[in-house]
């Protein structure tokens, strides 16, 4: 069964430069034939990126506002957002990660030529994902963005030129540090749906290189300290939790795996109260923990108050004594 993902707000304009609509001429009677081509042009400023390896995958087809994934990918509940221009990059990275996970066979592969161009030909209608490999030119590493491309019959030509974007860094070391973090996008009510942990596979050039478990104990985070800069590194959540969709994003030091809760009525579990059992042992309520505020503020005064009563008392007693002595003298006289 193939999973169909809805494309909310599917806007052709929003795909410009990202999810490329490859227009083919309507006059072509064999428009659905495998006769279309995609040409990638890889240049960054004045640098022609010759020899950059690209792999093209056919990931499915679009039907109106829905994407019908190929069977290998249909089992994964991916969060592709609204596929707007801002979101399509992340959608492409998410799909790319699960292409690595299922080891999807490529539709075509090749390298850019001396002019930085690569043409994939013989393509039929459908959705394609183009993933490029990192290329070192001099002391600079070029990281191509992943492209989502659509070939259909709506256009006026058989070929479409695509211009990938590139991120580039100076080669400062042979290895990189990557941190993978799992984030949950749900509310408190759905937190119970979270698993205790998730398994994340690290892929190096499409093959599993490491597997880690993320959980609350490690704050849903793990770091690899020495991943070589020449390889393509991807991560994928091995099993997407029930009622969640996954989105994967990455850059040159971070992998973000985001699980968004989508409550489905079909999987709602009704709970019944546990059966009442008769226990012979007496149960005691849990101890009540009570906190009490200090009853009195700290005493910060010197002992001044006795001074006045002592003084007054002394004066009174002395006066009384003198009075007693005077009375005694009168009695004697």
């Amino acid at each position, binding site marked *: 069964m193939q999973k169909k993902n809805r494309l909310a707000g599917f806007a052709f304009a929003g795909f410009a430069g990202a999810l490329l609509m490859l227009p083919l001429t309507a006059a072509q009677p064999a428009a659905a034939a495998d006769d279309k081509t995609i040409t990638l042009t890889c240049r960054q400023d004045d640098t022609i990126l010759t020899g950059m390896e690209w792999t093209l995958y056919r990931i499915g087809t679009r039907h109106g506002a829905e994407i019908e994934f190929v069977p290998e990918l249909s089992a994964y509940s991916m969060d592709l957002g609204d596929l707007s221009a801002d979101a399509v990059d992340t959608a492409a990275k998410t799909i790319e990660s699960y292409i690595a996970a299922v080891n999807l066979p490529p539709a075509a592969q090749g390298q850019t030529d001396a002019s930085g161009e690569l043409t994939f030909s013989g393509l039929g209608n459908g959705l394609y994902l183009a993933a490029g490999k990192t290329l070192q030119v001099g002391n600079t590493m070029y990281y191509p963005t992943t492209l989502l491309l659509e070939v259909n019959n709506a256009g006026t030509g058989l070929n479409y030129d695509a211009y990938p974007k590139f991120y580039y860094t100076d080669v400062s070391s042979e290895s990189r540090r990557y941190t993978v*973090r799992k984030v949950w996008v749900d509310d408190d009510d759905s937190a119970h749906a979270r698993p205790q942990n998730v398994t994340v596979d690290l892929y190096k050039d499409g093959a599993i290189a490491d597997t880690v478990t993320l959980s609350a104990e490690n704050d849903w985070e793990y770091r690899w300290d020495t991943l070589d800069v020449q390889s393509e590194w991807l991560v994928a959540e091995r099993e997407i939790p029930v009622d969640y969709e996954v989105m994967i994003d990455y850059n040159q030091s971070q992998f973000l795996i*985001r699980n968004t809760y989508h409550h489905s009525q079909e999987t709602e579990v009704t709970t019944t109260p546990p059966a009442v059992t008769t226990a012979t042992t007496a149960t005691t309520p849990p101890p009540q923990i009570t906190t009490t505020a200090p009853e*009195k503020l*700290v005493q*910060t*005064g*010197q002992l001044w108050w006795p001074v006045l009563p002592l003084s007054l008392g*002394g004066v009174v*007693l002395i006066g009384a004594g003198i009075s007693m002595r005077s009375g005694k003298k009168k009695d004697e006289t």
Partner: protein
Amino acid sequence: MKHNAWKLTVLLGVLMICAAGGLCVYNVRESRQAAAFSDQVVQSLKQDIPAPAEAPVQEPDTEPAQEDLFAPYAEAEPAQSEPPQDIRIGNDAYCGYLELPALGLELPVMSGWSYPALKRAPCRYSGTAQDNDLIIAAHNYSAHFGRIGDLETGDSIIFTDTSGQVYNYTVAFAEVIAGTDVDQMFSGQATDWDLTLFTCTLSGQSRVTIRAYRQTDEPAQSDDAEEHEAA
């Protein structure tokens, strides 16, 4: 025996007056000792408070800035910064010193309180300056908090912590709180006031309490710290 009754009465009266006088002498002496101790500790603290650490120099980043993917999912709760380390002088730990310019006082503040400690210096009773809920208690020695009742609205109070951070406060209002009214002492912290000073009334039954609020654009670096830095 009856003949000597007046003598006993006078003697008892004299003893009571002597007791009152002795108590006064004891209190005054204790107050002076506390004043001398506090003055000495304040001078030590001013010397011991380090210059603020220089901001770490950022290595030039040759790479284009990357978006922090994790930032949008950072915990919403405010980051709790650790209070600075206490400075130990003798057997006591101090969290900073207090200045009351209107009263001409500079006093050390111990980081925790106990009755023996209160006899030597004002003590942090609760909270921190960073969290705007600092409460400082002190004896009512004239050289400690005995005259805080004379502070007026708008008077300045300055607290400098052991990292050299200066917190400037302005007196908001004064109140007298019953010694048993703990809730009132803590009410309104970080909303109605940012700093509280309190001490006993002469009777010891109530607490003279000064509430102050932080001035804006704080904290700043202390002059002493800047002098350290310049040196």
